[in-house]
């Protein structure tokens, strides 16, 4: 069991506040990803949960017990670090059994648990090796093994894949997800990579500048982003944004052309930012005129860069493209795929239901 509740978490370094009151509820067994650009406070938040940073305000509770003042070892958590942090002078088996040794478990018990964890992670053949004799992916697995032998209430991962090459990263991503499905241990995972967040998470927490920007399932965030920031951060290539004004229920862009109907509760004459995803754009006979600036085929799909006025629009399509660079095309976006954001606050006018 391991539910985590964060209440109004604040953290300051001197006069600089880096976490401005974070509220978050994580259910037992949930895989939660904290995602955001560097400096958004996600790692600080994770380290605060681990007890490696002292919070300046608020409450952290695991299973309803407030643990603010407990030292890391008494919080019943395990953490996997970005650089693995394996003890270089200990073998794989010793690394994995270190916490059990500190907990004064019997050698037989330690051996049994280490062996069981090693089997899960396919490390049995490496138990007598030292960290320096392992590859990056193997080190990563040992770091996870060290976490799972303890059977903690919560796993914390701090950007665990960012030191691996692209191919290994994809592989370890699935391994971590499978491991979670098998162990069902509450997991909090920090990354700056939105693809990792989308593919692994039950729940994503998008952070920015020490605030929670939005919390939701991957598809909730993708389909109903609460702000321009979330809309642009989640999804690749990211959402297109154009300035528009609401006139008589229609969105009119700078060129005077109409993008589509206003979605959400927007009064006439209001300045908005219209957003739409690259894959939702359709080439059509009518619609907004644009010039094809770039065509990038990747095989399965093709990415087009369209120029209209001074805006660049990225579109992706699975259709084969007959146009060539320089051609004039027209495109449109289905009304239900249009997002309207307030031009000043950048908050969504379309998706008023902000989870939490």
């Amino acid at each position: 069991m391991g539910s985590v509740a964060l209440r109004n978490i604040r953290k300051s370094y001197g006069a600089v506040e880096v976490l401005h009151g974070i509220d978050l509820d994580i259910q037992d067994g949930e895989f939660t990803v904290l995602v955001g650009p560097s400096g958004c406070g996600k790692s600080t938040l994770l380290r605060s949960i681990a007890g490696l940073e002292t919070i300046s305000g608020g409450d952290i509770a695991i299973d309803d017990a407030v643990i603010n003042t407990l030292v890391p070892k008494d919080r019943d958590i395990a953490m996997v670090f970005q650089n693995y942090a394996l003890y270089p002078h200990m073998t794989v088996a010793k690394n994995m059994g270190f916490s059990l040794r500190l907990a004064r478990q019997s050698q037989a018990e330690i051996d049994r648990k280490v062996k069981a964890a090693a089997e899960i992670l396919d490390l049995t053949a490496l138990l007598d090796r030292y960290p320096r004799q392992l590859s990056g992916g193997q080190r990563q697995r040992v770091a996870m093994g060290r976490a799972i032998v303890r059977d903690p209430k919560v796993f914390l991962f701090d950007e665990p894949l960012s030191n691996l090459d692209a191919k290994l990263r994809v592989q370890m991503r699935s391994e971590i997800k499978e491991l979670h499905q098998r162990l069902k241990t509450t997991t909090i995972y920090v990354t700056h990579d939105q693809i990792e967040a989308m593919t692994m998470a039950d729940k994503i927490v998008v952070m920015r500048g020490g605030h929670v920007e939005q919390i939701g399932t991957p598809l909730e965030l993708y389909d109903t982003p609460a702000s321009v920031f979330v809309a642009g951060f989640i999804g690749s290539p990211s959402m297109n944004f154009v300035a528009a004004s609401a006139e008589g229920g229609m969105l009119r862009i700078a060129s005077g052309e109409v993008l589509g109907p206003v979605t959400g509760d927007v009064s006439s004459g209001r300045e908005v930012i219209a957003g739409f995803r690259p894959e939702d754009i359709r080439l059509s006979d009518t619609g907004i005129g644009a010039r094809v600036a770039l065509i990038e085929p990747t095989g399965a799909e093709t990415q087009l860069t369209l120029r209209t006025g001074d805006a660049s629009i990225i579109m992706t399509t699975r259709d084969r493209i007959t146009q060539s660079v320089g051609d004039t095309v027209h495109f449109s976006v289905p009304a239900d795929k249009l997002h309207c954001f307030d031009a000043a606050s950048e908050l969504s006018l379309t998706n008023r239901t902000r989870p939490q």
Partner: protein
Amino acid sequence: MNEQPRTLYWIFLSLVGLVISLYVLFPVFWLFLASFKTQAELAQLPISFWPEAPTFDAYKALFSPTHQKGQLLDWPQLIGNSFFIAVSSTIIVLVFGTLAGYAFSRLNFPGRDLILGGLLISRMFQGAALLLPTYRLMSMIGLQDSLIGLVLLYSAFGLPFATWIIASSLREIPRELEESAMIDGASRLQSMVMVVLPLATPALITAAMWHFVGAWSEFAFASILLESNDHKTVTIGLASFVELFTLEFQYVGAAATIVALPIMLIFLFGQRYFTRGLLAGAVKG
């Protein structure tokens, strides 16, 4: 640089190194050979390089009371004193240097960098400038002519540098290793002893070697502070030959060899710790 000049450059460097080594080592070797010669052989002309009939008489004389004559000092006692002083002060320096080095490298406290810089400044004073004030001080607190006094004095002189070496090496050890240990259930002291210190072994050994060698071969302070014969150290013993047995170089050679032996052994043993990449594999790399 292509192959040819690089090889030539290497040969040139090796030759220079060889010449310097010969220049430095020859007197040492000459003294070593002298320890196996008789006094007659040492005095004869032309000079013989290798001992004609190698003998251990000089070594026997140093260690057997029956051979000791005149003011030839009690060498087993001298060696014992020097070992006591060097080992005790090395232990003190290691224990406090480690604790201080850990604090300087891991904890945040006001004035930390200033104090660490101050430690280095204390190294800039020439020992000679401190001889008299130190003598006055030690007399005042009744620690002149005392082995304990010398242990404390050497520890005080040695600590700043040892702290500096240990602190800089601890800084190289990733913080995450300790954090990981603390999450794994270690207290700060446990994480220091079980994770940090094993990784700092090369620095600890370097600091210990440095201090031991310095304490073992220190002469100036020992010679002004120690007065009674049963408190003297090997370096004083060596110096006393020069006054007493000017011509008996076989004794000087034998004593010098004995005094140099621990230092040579220490370097032979300690060398491998300089080259061992203990940190490899800890973090990405």
